[in-house]
């Protein structure tokens, strides 16, 4: 098994060309922190981008940063922090869920997995912040798309096209992202004791208000004790994050307590506790306890999330919590993933998708990890794959149609 460790974009191009000419598929990895997601890729050769590193451009006042694809996210976030900026979509860290260390992962992986976090609701995902890429297609051709400016409709947005492609279309070598000022401060408003349905209602009220909530999660009784070192007392917690300038945060927290005061007893978390809580919500913390039990991330219409859980629990045991106003359900199964039942129920409740983000290899090999697509969509996806990587050189089999 050969591991290619290119230092430059030219070397990536050379490697892919070689692989094309030899018809030798490559597994494309950064730090390999998300290797446990998707169908297992089995190739003789690996294209490891962890040496293709370095921030090549950072202009805080222009809100733009470019880096080579293998640059650690941790390095980028540290640099941004020095200038009170951040990646506003709050990319999650899958490391702990797989029993790995936190803080791993590269910029390329961030785009390939289209990462997001609790702020997805307000700020979008990686796809919404990528401005441009340089990449090498599975044809062994280098191309670029986009640029370094936010307003750009010149040609197709291939940078977005690479978001969520899990390395199956092209190998990104350089990526330009929009960056934004970090909030001056944050506070979390917590309501205790709501059941899932009442919590969903409270979150909808908060999100539909002018309080500009940037995180809305519900942590039911069964998991709440695992957050912030057991710092919550009693019952489920419905948590709403408010970020911004000090006077504005105080004002909006007050607005929330006026709007939701009669929904249950409320308290607030200070900045430090709030930061920690949302990092844990972001990273699936309650399920990152070393157990290999299957974990789903399910995305549905926010108001339907709790209905799905309710219906599903009649069929199988699961431990859950909700993010994204109730629309993102983190679900740990007691035993089997029960993919078919779950997906049938999702379709029945108006659609969405379930991703089996953690499961033992044998289960992943036998279960569609990503939501199966209707025939015309699957055919279109397969045609797109064909246009970028006709010989299936890049991450063969990682997604179902690849």
């Amino acid at each position, binding site marked *: 098994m050969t591991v290619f460790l290119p230092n430059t974009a030219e070397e990536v191009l050379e490697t892919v060309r070689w692989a094309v000419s030899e018809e030798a598929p490559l597994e494309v990895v950064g730090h390999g922190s998300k290797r446990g997601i998707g169908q297992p890729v089995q190739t003789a050769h690996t294209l490891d981008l962890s040496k293709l590193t370095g921030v090549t451009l950072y202009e805080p006042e222009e809100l733009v940063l470019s880096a080579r694809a293998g640059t650690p996210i941790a390095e980028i976030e540290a640099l941004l922090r020095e200038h009170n900026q951040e990646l506003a979509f709050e990319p999650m860290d899958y490391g702990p869920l797989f029993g790995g260390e936190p803080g791993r992962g590269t910029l390329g992986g961030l785009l390939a997995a289209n990462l997001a976090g609790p702020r997805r609701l307000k700020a979008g995902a990686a796809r919404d912040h990528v401005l441009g890429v340089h990449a090498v297609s599975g044809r062994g051709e280098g191309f670029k798309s986009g640029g370094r400016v936010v307003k750009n409709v010149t040609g197709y947005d291939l940078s977005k096209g690479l978001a969520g492609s899990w390395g199956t279309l092209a190998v990104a070598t350089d990526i330009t992202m929009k960056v934004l000022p970090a909030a001056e401060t944050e506070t979390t408003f917590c309501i205790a004791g709501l059941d899932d349905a009442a919590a969903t209602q409270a979150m909808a009220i908060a999100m539909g208000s002018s309080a500009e909530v940037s995180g809305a999660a519900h942590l039911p009784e069964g998991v709440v004790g695992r957050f912030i070192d057991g710092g919550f007392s009693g019952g489920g917690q419905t948590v709403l994050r408010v970020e911004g300038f000090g*006077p504005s945060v105080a004002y909006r927290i007050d607005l929330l307590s006026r709007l939701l005061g009669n929904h249950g007893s409320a308290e607030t978390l200070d900045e430090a506790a709030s930061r920690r809580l949302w990092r844990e919500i972001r990273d699936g913390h309650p399920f990152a306890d070393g157990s290999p039990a299957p974990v789903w991330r399910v995305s549905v219409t926010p108001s339907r999330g709790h209905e799905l859980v309710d219906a599903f629990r009649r069929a199988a045991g699961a431990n859950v919590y909700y993010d994204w106003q109730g629309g993102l359900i983190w679900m740990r199964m007691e035993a089997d993933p029960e993919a078919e039942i779950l997906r049938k129920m999702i379709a029945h409740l108006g659609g969405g998708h379930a991703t089996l983000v953690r499961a033992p290899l044998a289960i992943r090999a036998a279960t569609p990890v990503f939501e199966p697509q209707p025939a015309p969509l699957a055919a279109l996806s397969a045609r797109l794959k064909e246009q970028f990587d006709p010989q299936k050189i890049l991450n063969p089999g990682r997604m179902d149609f690849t």
Partner: protein
Amino acid sequence: MSGLKMPQANAATLKKRAEIIADMRIIVPGEGVVDAQNEMRAFESDGLTAYRQMPLVVVLPETTAQVSRILKYCHERDIRVVPRGSGTSLSGGALPLEDAVLLVMSRFNRILDIDYANRAVVAQPGVTNLGITHAVEQAGFYYAPDPSSQIACSIGGNVAENSGGVHCLKYGLTANNVLGIEMVLMNGDVIRLGGKHLDAEGYDLLGLMTGSEGLLGVVTEVTVRILQKPETARALLIGFPSSEEAGQCVAEIIGAGIIPGGMEMMDGPAIRAAEDFVHAGYPLDVEALLIVELDGPQAEVDHLIDRVETIARQNGATTSRASTSDEERAVFWAGRKAAFPAVGRISPDYYCMDGTIPRKQLPRVLAGMRALSEKYGLRVANVFHAGDGNLHPLILYDANRPGELEKAEDFGADILRLCVEVGGVLTGEHGVGVEKRDLMPEMFTEDDLNQQIRVKCAFDPGHLLNPGKVFPQLHRCAELGRMHIHRGQMPFPELERF
């Protein structure tokens, strides 16, 4: 563009015109097929009126099933199709072709679902941008992207162009506010992408569709995010002796962590034209005027107004006024909003450009424009989405003077080249269409363009949907599919093992 070459008309299609019209009448009964020359006249151009072409026939379907049947019919017979929304494109994206069915989506004009709990509206593509806001404003909501054409332009057209507006700095472009679509491919396949849930899996086809200018599929339904109206908004009107100082002020506002709801700049000629027209009270002794709008909770807006005023003073502002009422704020904006017609008053014709640049390059680009203005002997006025670097130079000319349109177009092309040269792009929000099609190689290599065309090949391998737009040359898909294998040594085999 005056010498614009469009794809050669398909003679077989032209010959079968009567038969095609009859078949279209079967698919779309009633008033949905327009073939009389005088009635088709209304569709012969879009917002880029320098170009006109009568279509083969105009078809106005009402249902997704009809769109699917029309496209499948045309696909099977090799007939070209040009989609059209409201026809406000400024780049000729909806320009008809002599041998193409013009598929007009304006009868798809219903809002299908308003869902406040999930902050989403499902609309047919012919609903206007402002129509969505009107449908939800009584509950305090609005749809954020606000192109100046919002009373007329369709949400389907917005998706096709990835349209922006003054509020996009803070709230994002169309791409960031669309949750899902239904679309029909050229072969008739109906496909749904996304919905009220977030981040559908698989390839980001929604991202590719947004801004694809009607070349990939026909949008038949759109689900958008709606937002609660900010509690309050206030604007600052700030004058500077030069655009350098105004530009520095913008950089420092953002450097201070403030993202205003809108941040617009006008140069001297634009200020004077606007003031003459609407009497907004703009200072006339300044060379750059900034309008900075802050929105959000009252406490935040008041806090930030003070901070922005301080930053402006530190950067040499000679005048600064903060609005104290919504009426006053509207007056501040009136001049900016009327900038195009205001320029229209001082010149028989004007040509609106749309490049984006890294903001810090503004002084260089403005200086370059002044030089070009002298070279071509044509005046130029600038309005500028200052927060995100999107420039709208308005070139003043007189179409009745022989050669002046061509001169204006050459001037425009030179401005866009300059934008690309300083790290910017050809178009920020108006699209490539036919207008900037032939400039694409200024920004992209052949390999870059070929990979984009390959995306087109996945959606529409016969190049039947809106051909002649965006790409200077549409290579045949079979040709692009060929692999060029570079045989070689195994590169730098660092034989590390896991």
